[in-house]
Every structure is written in C-alpha cells, then in structure tokens.
C-alpha cells in the first residue's frame, strides 16, 4: 500500500482535487466514512467540512497520520492489507479507497473487506487500459512510466495494476453491485456517460466506482 496517491492533483479554484470532489458527490451528508490510505487527510477534511461526515482514516505513513491529527482527523497508522480484518461488519456507511487498490498485496481480499465493513464502497484507481499505457507496452515494448504513473517497474509500489474492465470483472466476482461508475480523463473530468465500456477503458485515466454488496 502506498502512502502517496498516484495521480497528480488537479484542483478546482478552492484547491480541492477534482477526483475528491467527485467522490464527495457520491457520499450522503452526515454519514460515517472510513478512508483507507487517506494521505494527509484532504479528502476526509473535505467530507467533514462540506458534507458533515463523521470520518475515520487509515494511513501507512507517519507524516500523513501526523498531518491528519493536526487537522483534527481521527486517523490511525495502519495497512489495508493487514488491518481491515479487525473492523466489524457494517461499521461505516462508506469505505473509500482512492488510488490505493493497485498497491495492495491482495486487491480482491481488500475489496471484500470494503464491502463487509461499509454498506457502500467507493474505489478509484489508475486505469492501466488507457491508450497511452497501451501504446507504451505495444509500441515501445516497455512498462509505462508516465506523469501519472511515475515509477519504474522495479521500484513501483503499484504491484497490481488493472484496467477498468478488469475491475468491473472483479466486482462481478466478489458480488459487488455497481451503483455508479465514472471514468475521468487526464484533466480529472468525467468522460461522457453515453460512451460504451471499451471507450471508457481506452480514454479513462482513472475509474471511480460506487459499489454496494449484492
């Protein structure tokens, strides 16, 4: 699990990341939220201040946890791969995992925990099916190193990259119902909903999914 989110932040005028604003839109006001891999707590603070959310966080890095504590956010130092089992069923209305699932050792197990701990789960991840990634692999014959995925294959924390279609398949496998699915383009804006899956998978830089246990 990585301590820093993978994508470069694209912000609105208030300094909020567009993908965070999109996630915030999916959350009902006043709900209980667990943000896994919450970084410096920007999303939790946004949810608290705009949505009146009672938020909790898990973060691997000490600097991140300290930044969260200083914002008054109850965040514990921990690891998605090992610590989610300790949370009781239905403890939260939403469990959020942004830009982290690709860095977990067992994405499927993590996703199953998300759906167990939360009534709903919100998952976002970089899309390995994006056309620029495909070009790198097919034409250059190299693992992609881009602005959005800045690591080389040997030092990346992102050990389980997937495409949007791969993730949709995983959702089916673990019995998750997709309530909302959005693909974001390179600027962090949603791609038109009328496009088919294959187009999302080609054009989306990241996918954001609102999931529910079936």
């Amino acid at each position, binding site marked *: 699990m990585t301590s820093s989110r993978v994508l470069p932040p694209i912000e609105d005028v208030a300094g909020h990341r567009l993908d965070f604003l999109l996630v915030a839109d999916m959350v009902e006001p006043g709900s*209980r939220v667990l943000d896994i891999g919450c970084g410096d707590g920007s999303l939790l603070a946004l949810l608290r201040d705009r949505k009146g959310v009672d938020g*909790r966080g898990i973060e691997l890095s*000490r600097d991140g*946890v*300290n*930044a*969260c*504590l*200083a*914002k*008054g*956010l*109850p*965040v*514990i*130092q*921990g690891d998605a791969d090992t610590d989610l089992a*300790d*949370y*009781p069923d239905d*403890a939260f209305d939403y469990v959020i995992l942004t830009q982290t699932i690709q860095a977990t050792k067992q994405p499927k197990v993590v996703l199953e925990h998300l759906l167990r701990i939360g009534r709903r789960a919100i998952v976002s991840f970089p899309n390995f099916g994006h056309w620029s990634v495909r070009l790198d692999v097919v034409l250059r014959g190299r693992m992609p190193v881009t602005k959005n995925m800045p690591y080389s294959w040997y030092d990346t924390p992102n050990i389980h990259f997937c495409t949007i279609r791969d993730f949709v398949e995983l959702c089916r496998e673990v019995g998750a119902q997709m309530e909302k699915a959005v693909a974001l383009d390179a600027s962090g804006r949603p791609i038109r909903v009328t496009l088919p899956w294959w187009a999302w998978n080609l054009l989306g830089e990241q996918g954001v999914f609102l999931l529910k246990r079936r």
Partner: protein
Amino acid sequence: MTMSSATLPPEPRNQVDDPSSLVARFGASEPLLMDSGGSIGPWQIGYQTYGKLNADKSNAVLICHALTGDQHVANVSPLTGKPGWWSTMVGPGKPVDTNRFFVICANVIGGCMGTTGPASTNPATGQPYAVDFPVVTIRDMVRAQAALIDRLGIESLFCVIGGSMGGMQVLQWAVSYPDRVFAALPIAAAARHSAQNIAFHEVGRQAVMADPDWRGGRYLVEGTRPSKGLAVARMGAHITYLSEIALHRKFGRNYQDRSAPTFSFDADFQIESYLRYQGLSFVERFDANSYLYVTRAMDYFDLAAEHGGSLAKAFRGSKTRFCVISFTSDWLFPTSDSRAIVHALNAAAASVGFVEVESDKGHDAFLLDEPEMFAAAQGFIDAAARARGIA
C-alpha cells in the same frame, strides 16, 4: 554494590505527609473507597498545577505519571534537583502548553510523594501503614484523582495524558468517567498488563521482600531500609525500559574506568556500573513498600475484565477523542498493546488516531526527546482545543 548500613539512605519521608507541593486533604468523613473492599480516611493527594484555569473551566489537562513518577511534571524535583520528569512535553510553548492550559499532575494513591500510601501515617495506629495499606488498583488512583478534580471545581477535563502506567490511568479515566474526558492521549500504554510484565514486577517485589531489612514491611518502624532489595528491583526493571540496541549504543561491552577485566565481580562493564547507579539513586527517592503497591496496581489492570472481557464494550458510546501513541522498540508495552486499544476503540465507533513512533530507545522513549511524538501530540491537542473552543 557498596552500601554500609551505617549510612541509611534518606527515606523520602519528608515528602510523604507534607510534600513540597500542593496538597488536597480529605477528612475521615470523605474516605476513599477502594476496589479491594478496603478504604482509607482521612487521606490526602499531593499535586501540582501549572497555568491558569479559564473562566468556563474548559482548559484543564490532567497528566498521569508512571510507576516511579510524581506530581513534579514540569518543575524542578524537590528530591533530585533535576528538571520535571516531562518538562519536554509540559510547559510554556510545549505540546501541553501551560500558557493555554491549566495543567494538573497528582501523585498516585499508594505513592510516597504526598499522596496517601504505605509510608503515610495510619491514623488508627499512629505508625506508617506499611503492608496494612489496602492493595491499590489503577481505578483507585483514578478515583482519587476524580476527587481532586471535584475539589478543584472542574466538571470535565479537556485532556487526560500519560505514558506507561500513566496511560493506563488515561484509559481508566475514559472508561470510568466518559463524560468528564474530552480528549485522551495514552502513550506507550496497554489496556491490560501482560503476563511477561507481571513476571518482571514479581521479580522486583521478591527482591525487595528478600532483603532482610524489609522486616515484613515494617522497616520504617524498625529503622532499617530494604535498600539492596529495592535497588536490585530497580536495576531489573530499568533493563525493561530500554532496548537491546539502545544498551549496545550507549554502553556496548565497554569497560568502566579500566582497560581490562579485573577477573572479579566488580562492575567491570559500564552497563553494570550504570545499573548500580540507577539502583542506588532510586532508593534515595522511593519508598520500597510504595514500589510493591504501585507495581501491584499495574499487574491487576485489565480494563476489559470489568466489561465482560470485551475492551470494545468498555469504550461503547464514548464521545472522547483518543490519540494512541506507541514506539517501535518498546518491548515492555509493545505496539501490539496499543493496536489492541485502537481496534477496540474502532469497534466501539469511537474517535481514535494512532501513531507508532520510530525510536530505538525502548519503553523510556515516551520520556525522552522524540520529535515525532511531540508532533503527533501537539497536532492532536491543538485540534482538540479548537474543537473545544479553547483560545
């Protein structure tokens, strides 16, 4: 160890009944009822305060001290002349800022620094209680502190903070008086004392009781001091407060004031000399029976036990904000103990932050200069103060 019986170490008796600090005295009509079924009265609690209580009495912070600590958290110790034991954490501009907060620190029940304990005079006999003193629990300590807080006219505490045994008291406060604790900061603590820790304590107590000068606990009356036993207990305990790596860095296998071994049982190694010094200086400031009672209180501590074995139940419905801190090299109160607290708080849907500070200094790290700990504590306390509306 060299210690002639002709020069008895000065028993800190002068601090027992009339300490160099504030004292709250409770009459025979206000006895302290204890978990053992016993009670004491009249009784007293020695304490210190720093800073000013604000108009709406919302800025009171209680510091809970560890096994051999005292109320002199941020002032020069009247016994040792050294700075307060947590003057890095508590003071003007420190994480517990005495310019903003009204800070209270009290000696625990069973202690020997001005709060009633085994060295105090038993009103029934006119002699020290010694082993007639009722066995003390962490909850008894907290009950006594609550009586002091009542006496000070404070309805609810802004924050309760402590390390090690102090952290046990913090947890007990949050469970016994959930409406009186706005924020809780247990550091290097546990919700129950482990079998290994009970074992270490028992070795220490046996060392004290094996000293013929302990006299069945009646040494104060008989004019002896179980100094050798208490020093050995302290030496053993002191090892548990450090880490193997810290010992190696500080002392290695270095010789003490010599270039070769003497082939004797003299203190050839620096670590031996250091431990002997720790033992000897301890007996000058601590009462042996207090050591027995306070270690016992830690042994009996099991917060879940009074809630059907479920720690989560103990915290259910808690509105307190918690921040738990542990240290990577602390093997006495390891991170797994802190994580157990965090998991229970999570299961109880309580508000909890948690940081494991990277340090190779062992359990003692909480008393030392650990910038990561200060940063976490400061962030948590400042955010909680904003939420409480403290200027």
